[in-house]
């Protein structure tokens, strides 16, 4: 037994494969299928390989390839004959998933020496997890034959995204580039300016900070109908909602951040005879940068939420919120998922850009240096 390294994922995968072989064909429509044998062989080989003592990187690589090729064969095999899958199909899917899990476990235990490989692993591990969410979603919806209007498989959503990209692009432009971005910039600017004012006049700070803290717990999104009534159906009303939503996080975080510089550093600035504004720009604003960027990150999500939800209260016939609520009504759920996928993508990119800016601007901070 010295050549073996048992793992529960491998044993269970082996058992699942055996059960799948015992239970016969995978689908009632295509008996056996040309790929069925290949899938089983792949999975069996993978399960055995996962428990043999070989170099971990090689093992992980082989497992990743085996599990995903098997999953690919499974999914292409079931496409077109939805709802006909029998138990062995799901057993094989589960076995492939376990092998992928095993490979991720091996990879997370690796201690690569080069930084490039470490970075690759840090990206690869969550990527495999995300991929398997999609694979399981695809496999379960197609395998059980869940109606498209309830939950379309990811491939259908992707097809829809490719098919109606002009509409999606127009919606993104209306909701995010106009309403979201304008509101985000304006809301943050006003919040920042108010924070500076509150810092200059401590009376204002003592009054505003408790109110700001309280407001941050309130459902501010509720001002959406009022703004739509005041500023009309166009993007301006959505930008107004975003301004109101982003104002308070920016205010509270900036005021907190401006208090973050140490007393000794401030005393040093005083011995330099620096004015209020010099101290502000050379010491206190840089010290507040992590807090300000925190607000910018929180607000990047809030801006999208505000812009989309405000559209539920009335829009011209373009916009992501408008599209979502009308397509839900028409039961075009794949279009809704396409909008959501686009919103998720844009939201992540937006957040990522702010996070990159933060790294560039606060390179000195311990949380960035890893100190």
């Amino acid at each position, binding site marked *: 037994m010295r050549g073996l390294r048992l793992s529960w994922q491998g044993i269970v995968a082996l058992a699942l494969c055996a059960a799948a072989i015992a239970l016969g064909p995978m689908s009632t429509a295509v008996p056996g299928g040309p790929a069925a044998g290949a899938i089983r062989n792949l999975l069996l080989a993978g399960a055995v390989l996962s428990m043999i003592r070989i170099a971990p990187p090689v093992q992980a690589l082989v497992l990743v390839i085996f599990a995903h090729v098997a999953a690919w064969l499974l999914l292409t095999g079931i496409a077109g004959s939805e709802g006909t899958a029998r138990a062995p199909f799901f057993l094989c899917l589960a076995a492939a998933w376990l092998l992928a*899990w095993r490979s*991720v*476990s091996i*990879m*997370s*235990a690796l201690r690569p020496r080069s930084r490039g490989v470490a970075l690759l692993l*840090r990206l690869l*591990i*969550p990527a*495999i*997890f*995300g991929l398997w969410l999609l694979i399981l979603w695809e496999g379960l919806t197609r395998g059980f034959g869940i109606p498209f209007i*309830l939950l379309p498989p990811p491939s259908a959503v992707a097809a829809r995204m490719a098919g109606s990209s002009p509409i999606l692009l127009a919606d993104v432009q209306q909701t995010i580039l106009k309403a979201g971005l304008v509101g985000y910039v304006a809301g943050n600017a006003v919040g920042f300016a108010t924070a500076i004012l509150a810092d200059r006049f401590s*009376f*204002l*700070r*003592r*009054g*505003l900070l*408790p*109110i700001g803290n*309280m407001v*941050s*717990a*309130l*459902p501010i*999104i*509720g*001002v*959406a*109908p*009022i703004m*739509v*009534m*005041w500023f009309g159906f166009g993007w301006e009303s959505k930008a107004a909602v975003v301004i109101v939503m982003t104002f308070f996080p920016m205010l509270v975080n900036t005021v907190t951040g401006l208090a973050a510089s140490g007393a000794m550093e401030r005393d040093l600035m005083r011995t330099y005879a620096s004015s209020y504004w010099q101290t502000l720009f050379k010491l206190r604003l840089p010290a507040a940068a992590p807090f300000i960027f925190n607000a910018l990150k929180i607000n*990047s*999500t809030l801006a*999208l*939420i505000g812009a*989309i*939800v405000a559209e*539920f*209260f*009335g829009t011209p016939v373009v916009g*992501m*919120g408008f599209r*979502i*609520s009308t397509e*839900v009504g028409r*039961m075009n*759920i794949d279009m*809704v*998922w396409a909008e*959501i996928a686009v*919103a*998720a993508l844009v*939201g*992540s990119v*937006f*957040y990522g850009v702010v996070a990159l800016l933060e790294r560039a601007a606060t390179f000195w901070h311990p949380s960035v240096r890893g100190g």
Partner: protein
Amino acid sequence: MTLFREKIWPVLSILLLLVVVWYAGAYFMNAPFQRDLNRRGGQTPGFTEFVGQTWSQAKPTLPAPHQVARNVFENTFLRKVTSNRSLVYHSWVTLSSTVLGFAFGTALGILIAVGIVHIKALEKSLMPWIIASQTIPILAIAPMIIVVLAAVNVTGIIPKAMISTYLSFFPVTVGMVTGLRSPETMHLDLMRTYNASPAQTFWKLRVPASIPFLFASMKVAIAASLVGAIVGELPTGAVAGIGSKLLAGSYYSQTVDIWAALIAGSVVAALLVTVVGIVGRLVERAMGARPA
């Protein structure tokens, strides 16, 4: 006395300023319509009378504070709680799905956090996605979740609670991961010298250490949960709840009703956060935490 001068007086004066600005805003925003109305009616009111008129329109652009206050008071105290014009009734509907979703979300968040702290592969593969999941404007899914679940005959409180769950699990997960990791190496080493099993270390060291973090993140989570419940009521023409009240108000231009619903939502939010805060303090005291 210093408490008053340093804390209460600034807040009060800012609030007072807000009310003054509100009244002024109500005058300026409602004035054009009122002028138009008076010209058509052939009336020429004096200035004070005109100001009074702008503050008492039936469907003002911006209702004056006392109009909102009267509406809130009437719909809270003077109506039967079962009437569907009662704010208490609508608040209760929203509150129940908020609390249910919050309970699910907190449980889910704690579960995920425990998994992340103990399983290395889970931490590396799940944590980035948990963070990414919050950069998604998830409220956009709200209408779909409700319609899809309605298609499979799940209606009422559960779909709304699911949205609340989604919004509230994230702060709890992040807070609990930080909390469960907060014991210092020295404490962990001490547990090891006691020959404590992993389960004992978990229950006797990690869990007590995480309690303050848990309650801090629960405060954030319950506020998010309320937003989820309100937005969950928006898109599908729900018949009850603060969100449906907002939507109905916007359909029929009942501005005073919208503002009253907003006030109700804020009161509910303040209540929930306060309750979580009090429970947190009680639990911490029962566990022997020193008051900070």
